[in-house]
């Protein structure tokens, strides 16, 4: 920004007439306001980014417990569901096999969601990844 305004400014100060100075002050005032706005917007954005990073990135130990519990929960729930289905429907052992693998997929999905690789707001990307994983 400073580089851009540099030659512009010198060009204007050259003649040094009073009318032009008033215009220049006005211009400066306008530009300063613009700069303040830009700065405020950028600072807000930065602040938000920092806060997001802080809430997402906890201590390494916390992160490890978080991700592994997400993954294990997916696998465990899949295995439990498969076992229950086998128990109820008597399809042993296929329910356990199928649902354990599905639970594995769900666990990876959980990990990717909580690691922020798959954005939750973007269903397209998440679906593509889910599809890739299933193959």
């Amino acid at each position, binding site marked *: 920004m400073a580089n851009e305004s540099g030659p512009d400014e010198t060009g204007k100060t050259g003649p040094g007439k009073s009318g032009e100075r008033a215009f220049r002050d006005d211009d400066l005032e306008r530009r300063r306001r613009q700069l303040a706005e830009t700065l405020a917007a950028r600072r807000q954005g930065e602040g938000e980014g920092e806060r997001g990073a802080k*809430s997402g990135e*906890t*201590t390494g130990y*916390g992160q490890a*417990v*978080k991700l592994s*519990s*997400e993954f*294990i*929960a*997916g696998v*465990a*729930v*899949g295995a439990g*569901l498969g076992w229950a289905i086998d128990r109820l429907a008597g399809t042993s052992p296929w329910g356990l096999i199928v*649902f354990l693998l*599905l*639970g594995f*997929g*769900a*666990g990876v*999905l*959980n990990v990717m969601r909580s690691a922020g690789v798959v954005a*939750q*707001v973007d*269903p*397209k990307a*998440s*679906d593509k990844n*889910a*599809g890739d994983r*299933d193959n």
Partner: protein
Amino acid sequence: MSNDPIHQFHISKLIPIEIGGYDFSFTNSSAFMVATVVATSAFLFLTTSSRGLVPSRLQSISEMCYEFVASMLRDAAGSQGMKFFPFVFSLFMFVLVANILGLFPYFFTVTSHIIVTFALAILVIGTVLVYGFMKHGFGFLKLFVPQGVPGILVPLVVLIEVISFISRPVSLSVRLFANMLAGHITLKVFAGFVASLSALGAVGIAGSVLPLAMTVAITALEFLVAFLQAYVFAVLTCMYLNDALHPGH
């Protein structure tokens, strides 16, 4: 026995009650749950009772708690989610105060038992399910069907999404429980080193400075973890509530 790191999680019956063959005893766990609720409500009640325009220190602490949870909920679930504010706030304060109370020596940590954290997580997921079906009817099931999936893959993706949804209360509860359990056991083990080293005489007493320093450091870390886990629990609650409010992503 004092060196047994598991002993602190032992549940003892204070007032044995039995109704219809079921055990309804008032245990030390229940006592500390009551203590948590009483401490939280007393703190919030007393600090905000003066209602100064210029807040005193304690009043600004409770205002900070309010603001913290309110902005968290508004960020995650939008202004529509604010009707869940009492729920999320009580949950956050309960977990936070229970975690911090548990750090006092000889106190029982309520959240180090998986059944407690699982009950809390089931409460959250139950709220999400009930509210989602109440508000959107069967449209809530769209949560499990992401858009833009090729037709053949839909059943597979739906099954995976359903399992992922069911695994939420499990991971939510296991995370809080495992953190509190592991932290307290580590603390107890290192504190036990101090006791057993100092029984060895002068050299042992000199050497026991190291585990003592470690215990102090871990205690500080545990305060951080106590807050962090309450925060994570509340944030995930907000995100799941967001799913109930806007199921179509």
